[in-house]
């Protein structure tokens, strides 16, 4: 068989190393010239008891011979460690009809009946079930490794099934475990080989064409890309408080930032973190704070202070399932409202969203540019999916930004923007501490243009006008948004954030069928381009794709904004708060229902 793109999964109990195995494997895929996109599957608890449904952990990997932007619509093949996980994973219905399930019978003795039920369930679901068993020698070696190493067996299987070079794998295993004593390494390699052999006897094999990848390619997840972007954007201060799935930005920076002259400050809570970010920027040192879910709610009061004092502020919100603690390790796009409207009083801010790793890298540059030019808060919305998924992508050009005027127009254009026109400030003096003759005080109270407290109507109206005029400056800096497909037709699907990949693929599938469907993706989600109304009018139906709740009366967040701004009957047709990304197939199916 030869495939353009294939998606497979390795599902194991948490703590058994599925993610490590996946990392090693995709390194080899990438090396030989495949594009890959990985989404780890992480339980909300650290290491829940094994052989329970909540212990499900693993990786979903999509490999292709072309640049892929999303995890795909369904799984072609999965290796599952035991029956409980199979049973659990089948609930999600993410398999393709007729796809292959390789079930390890290793635990069969523990619960024969349950195994049978899980197997029956898989077969009833129309899956192609194949069972296997580790050979006794591999099991013995696992014993010597203290029960570890099963992931190496599965890795061997996958290496064989996907016809990846065994040598490359060995090299990768060696470099991954380079701290391990040679003896232990050998045992791991032994298990790997057993797995390889095991798969050789199976009637399962996939061939994915591999071209030598041109140019300079990187492999990175979204949060790492944001961290690197922060460094490249010349930001020098990170203030944060740990929270899933934002924490890894802080982790990466904690290691790397000092080498580039930056500092990481772990505050006592999210409120303190944003306060320190504001202090740093007031003092002239570009800073950023990142958070998720509950953290963005806590930061709202300080966001208002930044607005009022005209202090630059960048807040990154890596969205997860809500409301409240919600689903901390699942993806969602429900923080758009809180990002735009969360703070009391009139809100003026810019909200960016990131579609992929490259966007993650450049979002800090654009955020810094906007917040320093406008002196209004800039919120960057990423999400769980973007934060943990990593993919092979073209090396982005470094900016090595020192001043915001260094920003390349191409970077702004990536977010649909041209350079901003002139911006008026509420307060005339915007000097930085240390500037002699410029001492100035800022306050959350209303002020006149001199910065003095002012309670009169005209002064308060002026402050509101000036701040809102800044947002108008952004509206005037929009490039005409580009469509996926034509600028008119039967259905337009509008999306934002990490949904881009599936949007592109879904729309392309529909267009291949000759349907008049187009896509539109927004990276600046607030404010919206003024020409949107005219653009949307050229379609019979406009619907959005968002991983968020929406019904006939309550629109999903972007749909609601679009309706209010354009008065077009935009429907929130695609997406639900499922914790899982929207797939290309979902887009295809839902659009067809509309047509």
């Amino acid at each position, binding site marked *: 068989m030869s495939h353009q793109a294939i998606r497979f999964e390795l599902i194991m109990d948490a703590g058994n190393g599925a993610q490590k195995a996946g990392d090693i494997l995709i390194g080899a895929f990438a090396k030989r010239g495949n594009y890959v996109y990985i989404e780890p599957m992480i339980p909300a608890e650290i290491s829940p008891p094994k052989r329970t449904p909540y212990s499900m952990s693993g990786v979903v990997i999509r490999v292709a011979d072309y640049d892929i932007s999303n995890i795909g619509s369904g799984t072609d093949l999965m290796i599952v460690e035991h029956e409980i996980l199979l049973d659990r994973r089948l609930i999600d219905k993410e398999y393709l009809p007729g796809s292959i399930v390789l079930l390890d019978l290793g635990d069969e003795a523990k619960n024969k009946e349950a195994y049978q039920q899980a197997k029956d369930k898989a077969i009833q679901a129309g899956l192609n079930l194949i069972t296997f068993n580790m050979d006794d020698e591999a099991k013995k070696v696992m014993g010597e490794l203290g029960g570890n190493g099963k992931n190496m067996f599965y890795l061997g299987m996958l290496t064989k099934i996907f016809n990846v070079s065994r040598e490359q794998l060995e090299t990768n295993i060696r470099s991954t475990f380079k701290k391990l004593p040679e003896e232990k390494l050998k045992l791991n390699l032994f298990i790997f080989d057993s797995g390889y052999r095991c798969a050789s006897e199976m009637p399962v094999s996939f061939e994915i064409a591999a071209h030598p990848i041109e140019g300079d390619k990187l492999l990175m997840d979204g949060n790492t890309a944001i961290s690197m972007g922060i460094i490249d954007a010349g930001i020098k201060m990170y203030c944060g408080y740990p929270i899933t799935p934002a924490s890894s930005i802080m982790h990466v920076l904690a290691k790397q930032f*000092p080498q580039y002259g930056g500092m990481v*400050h772990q505050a006592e809570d999210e409120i303190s973190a944003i306060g320190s970010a*504001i*202090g*740093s920027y007031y003092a002239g040192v570009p800073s950023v704070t990142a958070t998720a879910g509950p953290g963005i709610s806590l930061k709202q009061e300080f966001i208002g202070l930044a607005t009022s004092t005209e202090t630059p502020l960048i807040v990154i919100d890596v969205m997860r399932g809500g409301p409240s603690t919600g689903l901390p390790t699942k993806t969602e796009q429900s923080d758009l409202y809180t990002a735009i409207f969360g703070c009391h009083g009139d809100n003026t801010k810019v909200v960016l969203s990131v579609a992929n790793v490259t966007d993650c890298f450049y979002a800090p540059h654009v955020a810094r540019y906007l917040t320093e030019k406008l002196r209004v808060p800039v919120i960057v919305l990423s999400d769980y999916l973007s934060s943990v998924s990593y993919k092979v992508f073209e090396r*982005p050009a*470094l900016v090595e930004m020192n001043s915001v005027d260094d920003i390349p127009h191409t970077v702004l254009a990536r977010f649909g923007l041209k350079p901003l026109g002139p911006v008026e400030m509420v307060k005339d003096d915007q000097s930085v*501490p240390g500037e002699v003759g*410029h*001492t100035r005080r800022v306050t959350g109270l209303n002020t006149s243009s001199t910065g003095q407290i002012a309670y009169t109507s005209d002064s308060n109206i002026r402050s509101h006008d000036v701040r809102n005029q800044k947002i108008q400056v952004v509206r005037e800096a929009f490039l005409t948004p580009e469509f996926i497909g034509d600028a008119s037709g039967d259905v337009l699907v509008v999306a934002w954030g990490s949904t881009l990949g599936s949007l592109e693929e879904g729309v392309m599938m529909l267009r291949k069928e000759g349907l008049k469907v187009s896509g539109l993706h927004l990276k600046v989600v607030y404010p919206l381009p003024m020409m949107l109304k005219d653009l949307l009018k050229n379609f019979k139906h406009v619907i959005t794709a968002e991983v968020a709740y929406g019904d006939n009366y309550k629109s999903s967040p972007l749909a609601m904004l679009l309706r209010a701004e354009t008065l077009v009957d935009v429907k929130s047709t695609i997406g639900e708060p499922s914790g899982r990304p929207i797939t290309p197939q979902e887009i295809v199916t839902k659009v067809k229902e509309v047509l």
Partner: protein
Amino acid sequence: MALATETKFTLKDYKAADPRWCTGCGDYGILVALRRFMADKQLNPASVVNISGIGCSGRIPHYMNTYGIHSIHGRAIPVAMGISLARPDLQLFIESGDGDALSIGGNHLIHGINKNFNCVFVMMDNQIYGLTKNQTSPTTRQGLATNTQPQGSWLKPINPVQFAMGLGASFVASTAEWLTSHIVEVIEAAYAHKGFSFVHVAQRCPKFNPTAWEAKESNWYSFLQHEKGVKADTKYGPDAAIIEHDPSDLGQAFKYAMMDHKHFGVYYQDTSKACYDDIVRSATDKAVKQPRSGLLDRFKI
């Protein structure tokens, strides 16, 4: 950002807008003391930042011709923390009220004290919520009728000096706004101390809490005096006892802190406590620098 150093700054140079406090408010005394101290030390107004929360106390930055942030209620410390990491060349003064510091802002105070970043923290204690008009604060005298506890405030007040000592503050002093030279000396000592210098200031609020501090009498308090600390103020506190107290004596400091009788002076100073801002900054300073041009190399496949 060159700082002018040759100028001679006078009191007037530290004066910005006219205050809008009530007649007789003790905040005037604190404002004047800060200005006097800065003039004495010839601090460059352009390199001073006053950071405050919300309250009558929170208005200080507006009246000081320095840089300043009148931030949000209870959260001046986080803002100051950010500045201190970013710009060690600036001189930071935080002004906070008893409600601002000990009620809504308590957690930031804990962590400010614990991180011991370099600043002077002035807690203006009128034992009441002034700006919001007469509610019980953590330092309100038990039994005092307020708008929120009209039957008489329920709890024994928190003792701010004891509070700061208990959290391991590296510098703890107390003074009063009406002790016009003592307060300046205390601020001076606090400023000279590297780390988080906690300065408690007894402050009168004639509007809502006129019985709180009896400035006309001085027999209800004593001065803690020491060559390492500050002198007693015999002019404004003629009837106060004078106690020699070495600020490096932790145990004794605790004893004075826990007494019902009030002591003004420097309770405690520990010059050995590490400063978080130094640690974080020096880790960055010491890190072997990498050119940004190679930033992405290790992600190459």
